[in-house]
């Protein structure tokens, strides 16, 4: 407690000092990099200026009254209290303004809803707390998780400019093509938002939502999950890398090759050390946010794995829990999220980390046999 108070105080003085020099005082939405995002920006500015004009008139009259019609200036109040003509006027005029505004808004909305005839289809699946991208028909799929180091979050090392907006595997897309996003979720509701594209769509379990974009310029675009999805809602960013068609094709070919290699790994003979080393990485990306890097969890929501009876003894139940999850709890089914190799690695790691010294190896074949036996 005292330590956190101290770091807070130090941070406070540091940030007050840095206050004047840092340049981030952005006050407005940015137009973005797609045709749609630019028309959204125009709508935003149009409605903003309409509000400003109405505000100037209404507040103008108010301030005029407050200055000129205060009792000391204007001691005899008028007695008028109704006028049908002005009531009708200030009902009809706003109505007309709204209709004028509704026309371009409708046009843009219809355009945003037209996801037909896409060139690239990407299935985006939200998980607590990372995104999965699957290139439909290409056999390429991977997870994208936060890479900001814990030390930056805990104020031990300085924060980099992409703090909390950086991932291990960004979504890669080609420019100039109509990209359709099919958005869904495997657990709770998330929302996939990239401001530069003006694309925000909820990822809802049991639903597949559609959205699309066509990006004009290569670049890296960042966004975040925008629907409260539990503990690490603030820690599941989105990074999109838009490449030229050639670069994209090369990248895709590389991914396909890597996927083929990954499949071969299943047949390999794994040693305990190899599995533990691989498992630690998997654990940190998929498990640690709930069960904690120390394996101690946050009971009762997220039980400890360190010293757990299942982890120490019951291999089959351990595999079952990882592969199928626990219904009615926050434990998700990782059977489809993790490859057999990764599942075997993480289970082996859990059975051999933090003093869980079982010395047992769970091989990819064990996982495969378990899945076949179901």
């Amino acid at each position: 407690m005292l330590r956190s108070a101290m770091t807070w105080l130090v941070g406070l003085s540091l940030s007050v000092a840095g206050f004047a020099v840092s340049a981030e005082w952005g006050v407005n939405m940015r137009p973005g990099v797609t045709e749609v995002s630019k028309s959204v920006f125009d709508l935003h500015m149009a409605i903003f200026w309409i509000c400003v004009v109405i505000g100037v008139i209404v507040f103008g009259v108010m301030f005029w009254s407050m200055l000129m019609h205060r009792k000391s200036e204007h001691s005899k109040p008028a007695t008028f209290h109704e006028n049908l003509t002005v009531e009708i006027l200030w009902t009809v005029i706003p109505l007309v303004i709204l209709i004028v505004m509704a026309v371009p808004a409708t046009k843009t909305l219809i355009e945003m809803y037209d996801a037909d005839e896409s060139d690239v289809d990407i299935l985006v699946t939200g998980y607590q707390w990372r995104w999965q991208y699957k290139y439909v028909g290409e056999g390429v799929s991977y997870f994208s998780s936060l890479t900001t180091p814990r030390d930056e979050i805990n104020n031990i090392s300085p924060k980099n400019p992409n703090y909390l907006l950086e991932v291990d595997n960004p979504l890669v897309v080609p420019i100039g093509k109509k990209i359709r996003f099919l958005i869904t979720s495997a657990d709770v509701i998330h929302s996939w938002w990239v401001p530069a594209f003006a694309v925000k769509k909820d990822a809802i379990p049991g639903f597949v939502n559609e959205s699309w974009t066509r990006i004009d310029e290569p670049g890296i675009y960042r966004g975040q999950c925008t629907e409260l999805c539990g503990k690490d809602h603030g820690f599941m960013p989105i990074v999109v890398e838009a490449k030229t068609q050639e670069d994209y094709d090369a990248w895709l070919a590389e991914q396909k090759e890597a996927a083929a290699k990954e499949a071969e790994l299943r047949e390999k003979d794994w040693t305990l050390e190899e599995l533990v080393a691989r498992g630690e990485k998997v654990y940190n990306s998929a498990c640690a946010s709930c069960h904690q890097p120390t394996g101690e969890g946050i009971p009762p929501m997220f039980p400890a794995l360190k010293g757990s009876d299942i982890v120490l003894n019951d291999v089959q139940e351990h595999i079952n829990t990882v592969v199928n999850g626990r219904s009615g709890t926050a434990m998700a089914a990782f059977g489809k999220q993790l490859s057999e190799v990764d599942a075997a690695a993480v289970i082996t790691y859990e059975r051999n980390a933090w003093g869980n010294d079982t010395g047992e190896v769970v091989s990819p074949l064990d996982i495969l046999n378990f899945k076949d036996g179901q």
Partner: protein
Amino acid sequence: MSAVIDHHHADHAHGPAKGLMRWVLTTNHKDIGSMYLWFSFIMFLAGGSMAMVIRAELFQPGLQLVQPEFFNQMTTTHGLIMVFGAVMPAFVGLANWMIPLMVGAPDMALPRMNNFSFWLLPMAFGLLLSTLFMEGGGPNFGWTFYAPLSTTYAPPSVTFFIFAIHLAGISSIMGAINIIATILNLRAPGMTLMKMPLFVWTWLITAFLLIAVMPVLAGVVTMMLMDIHFGTSFFNAAGGGDPVMFQHIFWFFGHPEVYIMILPAFGAVSQIIPTFSRKPLFGYTSMVYATAAIAFLSFIVWAHHMFTVGIPITGELFFMYATMLIAVPTGVKVFNWVSTMFRGALTFETPMLFAIAFVILFTIGGFSGLMLAIAPADFQYHDTYFVVAHFHYVLVPGAIFGIFASAYYWLPKWTGHMYDETLGKTHFWMSFIGMNLAFFPMHFVGLAGMPRRIPDYNIMFANFNMVSSIGAFMFGATQLLFLFIVIKCIKGGPKAAANPWEGAEGLEWTVPSPAPYHTFTTPPEVK
């Protein structure tokens, strides 16, 4: 002859009982009104403390004071307590105190039910707050508690949360029934509906909204209860349920709910602005119709909270148009208030300062509301700090300033003393500056892309978050001054006349200050 008998009867009227049991057993509308107001103020401080925790954590990027799981409990309980524990009971308290005095009734129509509906509230919120100390923590799924985060993935304490909502809901429904019964049956002879003070009108309409939507809320939490404990799958997609249905039901309650929190403030401000402008309210009839129109529209706009869930384009367009329409009756109200001030003889006592700030800042909240109504633009605003800025602009200088204005306006009637005007004005200016510092920068960080409900953020949002936090601390601390002012006013101060305000009109100003324990035992005649 009959006059003599009346007089004799009045001599034997009961005063308040002595001791603690007075408050437990009371059926007196003034006692119950006071209890509602005190309760809501305690909740305001509790919910406010949670806001302070939130703002302290967001003072700078990085995790400093609290962990994300606790942060989520703070945002959730802050919202729940402010909505159901602070704002709603404060308005019911004002209704209890003022509606009988304003319509010339001796008490509320259903005094025993009145007592019961109050005493449910401490139970409800005791239950809700106790969840924070339970294993697994309190509700952490946002005040909108979207399933399945609030069902399959909720902490075990969610059951207590559900029952707390049930109790608060029952209390609200009974309060609403009581208010409707009082207004429709106990008006003094001669007080036709179109002669009622606007505060009474707005509360009558609010009460109907409450009766319409609180059962819907009860329904949705009951479905959650079934999903959690009895194996149903209303909101569980894996069992054939529909998580989006949760949102439809919730917002069918939730949108009228936001008008429940603002309409009584409209009414109070419509009493206060004419008083201190020394000029009758402009467009009384159109004010009544505008309130009714807003209430009607509030039932057909709920899905504007759900523009990003993927409803079909026709639905999206319908809800966009309907939402934009709300600007029309709301505009009418603002124009009427401004016209009331125009060519009046204005003075700026504390209630008037709060009322004017209400009109200006609520209008700013209305503008951002209009921006949010534009569905394509909403894709950029939705669930960012822009929304947080929007609803705090309509709720803090809207509902809360409306309550402060009412409190200062009627304190002389309640206590028999004038409050300290200098302190009152200090309270106003500190609140005004603090609130704008806290919430205006949220528009900026929202537009720059900061999502809501996150405990940590990128460094590009750091500057404005710090400004927000400073403003929030200022606003929060200032409310202790309000407590001091009220206690000082109860304890003493210059004697208040029956009508302490030069321009005030209405039956409540015809009874002495402080209002006697029993008023209007003989109904007054309204011409």
